């Protein structure tokens, strides 16, 4: 409704929204702040807000304990690798479901989702044994495959809902124009679905980055990502709030920044067909 909103009303909205937003983001902001405090000031009572002795010592300490970048790169590789692999498998599947739907398509999709409901802990030992057999323990490729499998249903679903909004006529036009199936997907479907694929990729990267069960269980050093990095900080000895904050900040910062910068794309596609 395009009636003028009074300035006072807008001011009230703004104040409310900022209040809520700051409240929601507060734990993160506070962690960030704390990461620059000396340990004793991190637990000072009453809490210090800004008037503390700013220091990057905590970051140095954390970095000295273990090399952040090893973990960081593994996180990047696992997130990107599993996403890329997932796309390669999911795009054809989503194409099939969206453009050649059968009576079972919905059931199939729901079945795929239901594979996500299997509790990881229950199948930990079988998976671990299989990984030993295949020599995949603590390998990036092993983790890439597992993360891909975990997120595949979500990728397929998102792409499916996105593809469904692309008129089939365009693909038919490509077919009439002499494009083979592969070219139809490569030249027409994929470029058209870029926004949807982008948000799928973003969501998948986030999910893969933050996966904190298999990545901890199936890795030791070579493939260990930031989740493993942070799990070594969950209770160090003595006063540790500031160091914990520093390590936490390091673990979440890359994905948080990526998320902030790409939130438009992420939001645009993140509907799972909930919005028609």
């Amino acid at each position, binding site marked *: 409704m395009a009636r003028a909103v009074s300035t006072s009303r807008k001011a009230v909205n703004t104040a409310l929204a900022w209040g809520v937003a700051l409240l929601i983001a507060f734990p993160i902001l506070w962690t960030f702040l704390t990461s620059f405090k000396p340990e004793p000031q991190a637990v000072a009572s009453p809490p210090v807000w800004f008037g503390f002795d700013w220091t990057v010592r905590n970051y140095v300490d954390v970095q000295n304990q273990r090399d952040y970048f090893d973990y960081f790169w593994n996180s990047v590789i696992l997130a990107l690798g599993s996403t890329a692999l997932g796309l390669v498998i999911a795009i054809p599947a989503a194409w099939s479901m969206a453009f050649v739907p059968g009576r079972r398509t919905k059931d199939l999709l729901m079945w795929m989702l239901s594979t996500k409901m299997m509790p990881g802990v229950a199948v930990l030992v079988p998976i671990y044994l299989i990984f030993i057999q295949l020599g995949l323990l603590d390998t990036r490729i092993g983790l890439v495959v597992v993360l891909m499998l975990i997120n595949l249903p979500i990728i397929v679903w998102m792409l499916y809902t996105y593809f469904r909004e692309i*008129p089939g006529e365009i693909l038919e*036009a490509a077919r009439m124009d002499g494009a083979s199936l592969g070219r139809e997907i490569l030249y027409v479907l994929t470029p*058209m679905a870029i926004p949807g694929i982008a948000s799928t990729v973003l969501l998948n990267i986030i999910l893969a980055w933050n996966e904190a069960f298999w990545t901890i269980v199936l890795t030791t050093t070579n493939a260990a990502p930031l989740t493993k990095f942070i799990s070594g900080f969950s209770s160090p000895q003595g006063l540790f709030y500031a160091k914990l904050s520093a390590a936490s900040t390091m673990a979440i910062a890359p994905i948080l920044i990526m998320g902030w910068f790409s939130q438009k794309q992420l939001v645009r596609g993140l509907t799972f067909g909930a919005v028609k």
Partner: protein
Amino acid sequence: MGQITLSGVTKRFGETEVIPPLDLNIEDGEFVVFVGPSGCGKSTLLRLIAGLEDTTAGHISIDGKDATGLPPAKRGLAMVFQSYALYPHMTVRKNIAFPLRMAGMAKDEQDRRVEAAAKVLNLTSYLDRRPGQLSGGQRQRVAIGRAIVREPAAFLFDEPLSNLDAALRVGMRLEISELHERLKTTMIYVTHDQVEAMTMADKIVVLNAGRIEQVGSPLELYRTPRNLFVAGFIGSPRMNLISGPEAARFDAHTIGIRPEHIGVHPTLGDWRGVVGVSEHLGSDTFFHVHETGLAESLTVRAGGEVPIRHGDTVFLTPDASKIHRFDQNGLRL
């Protein structure tokens, strides 16, 4: 070349037979319009010809060769879709060149053909825009351009104008007709708008529930509709249909008389009635006449400046030579 023959072509979706066995012959260079109410199977028939659907039974041959099993790209046909189906991520130039690129044509030959098509369609200055930056009519022209460059044996159009507004529709209608005059390529054109059918077609195929009701030139259908369905479908406003004693007077189960073949007079005439809504178009006036005892309402066309208003009593006289007679099965007598 573009001679297309359907023999015994049938289409079933699961249990429902959308197209019962159907024969049709389309000559090279003809402009054929498929017309019929929504859901009658026009698009399905067109898609069968295009190869976008499999036939359940029957054969399709193009230029004498059996094309029933060929994939769409191999049939040498081009299609223009209702939604235009442009590739939104490509420029107009790339859109038009796409079929050539897929055919592996040399780059400069592609360019040459695209330029030529763009010139024909007045698109030259838009070649580097994306479809999203074009108006509806321009988009439609791009879709046609994409069809032209392939130099197909025949063009297939599926309601290409239905997304345009009234004024544009009239303009594009003319452009397509002129294109046909120029290229003389076979065109198969689907619409449910009978004005389009009448004004564009060499031959109209009237479909109803997947069956062909009548095939003929526009004026054939206008003058001698084979049955009630065609009579009611062709002509605008619709033909007035009257049954009962008045029809019996003409030795028919039902008689039909078009609005333009009825005379109006304030005091003299065969049928008496009261004027309901009257639509003044300036050039013409359409009266809806009630309480005639013949049908709920009779539509009558009169000149632009007839001094008759809502509520007046009028007398109507049909032009006897223009009365259509139908038997109880709805077939023309």
